[in-house]
């Protein structure tokens, strides 16, 4: 096991941030912590990277105890915090050199590991980090987290506020790092990224709601979700919410996801109801659930 977390709890001024959390990450696994802001993801990262002490519980990273062997952990993990924390006044190259030196290595020694990512920012290596665009900052931060060849990589919301194209590229980079044998613990509020992880933990309000492979989590979801569409979306949401046997009504892109509380639900009844409400261009069909659907129903 690369990461073992056992009943970890942490509170700040009596407010519980995480409550008795346990999970394990296998060696070489890409493991995702999926949940919104305030779920406790950053607290978990800070405890595992030895920057914060838990109130209760124990954890090991790369075989080292997060309290007793914190120095060994700091040498063997890479951490990219959610907030950009490189030196804004140093250039791209100076930042990278700085982190390499701190860890007693050189850029050349581990260049192979960062090469794919670094060549994208190399044209700007004399630019101050503070003057980089969001996408480039993110790539530099990842290089700095990798420069000492860590065995475990911690990435706290690396794609938050990043556009869909850059997000896609970032995940391709992660897959490549995984192929090089690095264990990755990554957090994200974007549910669509969950599917790209080997296993995920769905987390909300300091507790883990579910841990499994994304495909298994979806397969285990037993409720039938209907995609519904009509000309006037806003009115459709209101009218579906007023349908007596509705269980949940949520907008999902182009369609509304509708779940009925009755097992013997007949979509034709709903179709008739919507027609009575003067809806036009009505479409009702069975939908494929996503991680987001499961998350919202936990």
């Amino acid at each position, binding site marked *: 096991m690369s990461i073992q977390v056992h009943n970890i709890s942490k509170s700040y001024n009596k407010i519980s941030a995480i409550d008795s959390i346990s999970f394990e990450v296998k060696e070489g696994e890409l493991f995702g912590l999926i949940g919104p802001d305030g779920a406790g993801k950053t607290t978990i990262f800070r405890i595992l990277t030895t920057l914060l002490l838990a109130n209760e519980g124990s954890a090991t990273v790369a075989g080292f105890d997060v309290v007793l062997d914190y120095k060994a952990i700091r040498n063997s993990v890479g951490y990219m915090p959610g907030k950009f924390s490189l030196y804004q006044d140093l250039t791209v190259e100076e930042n990278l050199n700085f982190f390499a030196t701190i860890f007693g290595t050189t850029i050349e020694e581990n260049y192979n590991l960062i090469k794919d990512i670094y060549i994208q920012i190399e044209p700007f290596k004399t630019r101050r980090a503070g003057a980089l665009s969001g996408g480039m900052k993110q790539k530099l931060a990842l290089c700095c987290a990798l420069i000492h060849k860590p065995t475990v990589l911690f990435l706290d919301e690396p794609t938050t506020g990043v556009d869909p194209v850059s997000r896609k590229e970032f995940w391709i980079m992660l897959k490549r790092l995984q192929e090089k044998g690095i264990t990755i613990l990554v957090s994200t509020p974007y549910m669509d990224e969950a599917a790209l992880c080997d296993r995920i933990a769905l987390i909300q309000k300091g507790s883990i709601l579910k841990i499994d492979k994304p495909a298994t989590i979806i397969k285990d979801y037993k409720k039938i979700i209907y995609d519904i569409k009509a000309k006037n979306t*806003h009115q459709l949401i209101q009218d579906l919410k007023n349908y007596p046997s509705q269980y949940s009504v949520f907008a999902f892109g182009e369609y509304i996801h509708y779940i009925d509380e009755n097992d013997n639900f007949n979509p034709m009844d709903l179709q008739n109801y919507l027609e009575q409400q003067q809806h036009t261009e009505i479409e009702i069909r069975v939908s494929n659930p996503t991680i987001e659907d499961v998350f919202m129903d936990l």
Partner: protein
Amino acid sequence: MLKNKIVSLARNDKMNKEKIIEVQNLTKQFGSFTAVNSISFDVYKGEIFGFLGANGAGKTTAMKMLIGISKPTSGEALVAGFDVKTNTEMVKRSIGYMSQKFSMYDDLTIKENITFFGGIYGLSKARIKEKTAQLVAELGLEDAIDKLVGSLPLGWKQKLSFSVALLHEPKIVFLDEPTGGVDPITRRQFWEMIYAEANKGTTIFVTTHYMDEAEYCDRVSIMVEGVIEALDTPKNLKAKYNVASMNDVFLKLARNVE
């Protein structure tokens, strides 16, 4: 329910008539770099207008010009009828603005924040009192009115920010990534608030990185390297690029500019 329907019919009708934002060849240069390159578009009253683009495409620069805090290098823009070059004060009075970065005062209570922003917008004491009562009732925050804003969950903060941006009943509200990091249920509740506000005739100008949210907009523009590469309804854009979702439209159009 019938009343809602009439309102939304009226909304569609109005949208065809009244332009609330008119942009002609709007350009912004920083030295030799052209961040926004002669963009032109109109936004109609009561419309939900999605303003999309990759990081670095020029969205923020364009938006700053439209809210009157950055002077265009050339081109014209009228916001609520006021020129963004010469009449920035009137532009600012006519709009509401909410950024992704939470910008209320954490160490003031909900009530104090509303009073503060109401005062900034020039509302009378009586009006502020009335608006405060209405706002907390709509958000179901009556019991939390004397709580420090800093202690509220993110989702509540976002909803509160949106309501405060609407305090002075602006004609247009600009939302800059309003749902970043918010949990999926709150994100949808937030969009229901946006729909309700648009139905009252308020124009919504919104940026987002969630492509499912792009589907909720009446029309969407996609900026690439300083120009508007596409502008249409989500339905027409998907048909035009022959793809199933707005995410695919975006991936087809947007390149990364670094």
